[in-house]
């Protein structure tokens, strides 16, 4: 087998990113490195030079902490709510295939002492990436179990140093109708905006994800950087983030603006708060046919319920 250095067959950014990932995942990284260097074992020839050798989907864990198995990679990458590309969940992967997520910059500003703009490579280099296996519960009544890579948002916030006035975090998706054709649709007020209370944003479960299944995030999953807040409905986990702004006032998300009676600011997974359309009492796990009970806070109540002590969660839906 020819020993072509990976750097010659892989775009530099991807190569560096992957090295970062390998470094950060330690022992697993060694195994993955073997795969990267040799190609998949069953594949005799080297991949064509034009096709970067993407590692096969792999995750360190096989189930979440409740024992629920991972949703398969194909479903995670082919069933996506991402109106910036298509309103058809099964068409997003195709519609976003040509989306190039580099170069990419993320600005952290607003009520912070250290406003800063990071290149995506800086974020990958600065913060160790770790695997987090989370349930994702969509407000539409379906759910998945996904092995993300990323880092807790509180690490980034600590660098930015929110001031005493900062109470909320406002996230914004890239606004570029040329690259995200769904944004030409005037039905919604682009760009996509989401928000968290500062203590929610600082919670250790809240991560910024840069990959899943051991691979760099694909466009349909929110490349190159997205939020993942596992105890809230999926639409809170905003994709393809370009700006993280600390604010004093509660941000208004795109969904709050478009249907205020259906989508509140908190959007915590809550089987007791009905939605006019989808069942919130039960859900369908992708890959299963029968319904499951939906758990309060999507099963993370022990970790996060205290954030909402004393609040009426029916009023603050």
């Amino acid at each position, binding site marked *: 087998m020819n020993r072509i250095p990976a750097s010659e067959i892989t775009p530099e950014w991807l190569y560096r990113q992957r090295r970062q990932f390998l470094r950060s995942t330690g022992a697993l990284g060694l195994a993955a490195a073997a795969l990267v260097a040799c190609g998949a074992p069953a594949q005799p020839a080297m991949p064509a030079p034009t096709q970067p050798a993407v590692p096969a989907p792999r995750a360190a864990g096989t189930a979440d902490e409740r024992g629920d198995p991972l949703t398969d990679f194909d*479903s995670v990458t082919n*069933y996506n709510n991402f109106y910036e590309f298509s*309103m058809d*969940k099964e068409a997003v992967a195709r519609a976003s295939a040509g989306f190039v997520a580099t170069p990419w910059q993320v600005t952290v500003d607003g009520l912070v002492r250290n406003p800063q703009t990071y290149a995506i490579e800086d974020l990958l280099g600065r913060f160790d990436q770790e695997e987090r296996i989370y349930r994702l519960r969509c407000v539409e009544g379906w759910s998945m179990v996904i092995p993300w890579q990323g880092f807790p948002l509180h690490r980034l916030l600590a660098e930015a140093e929110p001031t005493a006035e900062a109470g909320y975090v406002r996230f914004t998706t890239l606004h570029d109708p040329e690259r995200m054709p769904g944004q030409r649709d005037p*039905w919604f007020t682009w760009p996509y905006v989401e928000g968290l209370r500062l203590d929610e944003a600082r919670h250790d479960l809240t991560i910024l994800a840069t990959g899943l299944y051991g691979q760099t995030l694909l466009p349909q999953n929110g490349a190159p950087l997205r939020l993942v807040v596992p105890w809230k409905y999926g639409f809170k986990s905003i994709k393809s983030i370009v700006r993280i702004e600390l604010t004093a006032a509660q941000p208004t998300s795109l*969904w709050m603006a478009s249907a205020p009676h259906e989508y509140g600011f908190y959007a915590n997974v809550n089987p007791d708060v009905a939605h006019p359309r989808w*069942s919130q009492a039960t859900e*369908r796990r*992708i890959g299963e046919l029968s319904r499951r009970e939906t758990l309060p806070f999507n099963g993370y109540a022990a970790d996060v319920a205290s954030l909402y002590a004393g609040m009426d969660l029916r009023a603050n839906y």
Partner: protein
Amino acid sequence: MRRSDGLIHVLALAPLVWIVFDQLTGQRSINPIQTWTQRSGFSALALLLASLACTPANRIAGVRRAAAWRRPLGLYGFGYALIHVLIFVVIDYAADGSAIMAELAEKRYLIVGALAFAILIPLALTSTAAWQRRLGRQWRRMHRMVYLAVPLAVVHQIWQAKSDIRLAVLFALVTGLVLLMRLPPTTGARRR
């Protein structure tokens, strides 16, 4: 039977063939129950509307043959509605009566959908020529209930749409148009 009649059957069966074809060729949806529900509901309403459009097509546009398409299109529409409801009851909710009742009580779009379906059942059962003879004048009066069932189904569609109600509004417009064309001055009833 004319060739155009055959076309009606082909068109009406196409959505079903499409679903079965996708299953057999492995192009299965990642969330198949939702996909089946949506396709069957869409086909039910589209065919019912097509059925209602037959009389104006005959009387106003002069498509004489359309009078013969009314019944099969309506029955196909009901057939898809039946599939739609069965998917919900048997597959989605595994015939769990209490869970279904809880959903029904909670969601207005399901209440109007169920009303529409309840109206359609007796109409489908009495759609045969034998029943038409037996019921005589009552038959016509009874079958006008379809003009209640279809708008209810449109409301069901509007209320289940996620924010983007454009397709549902299009269906509502078509329904309104078809209903308007049934008003006495355009039905030709007075010309006689």
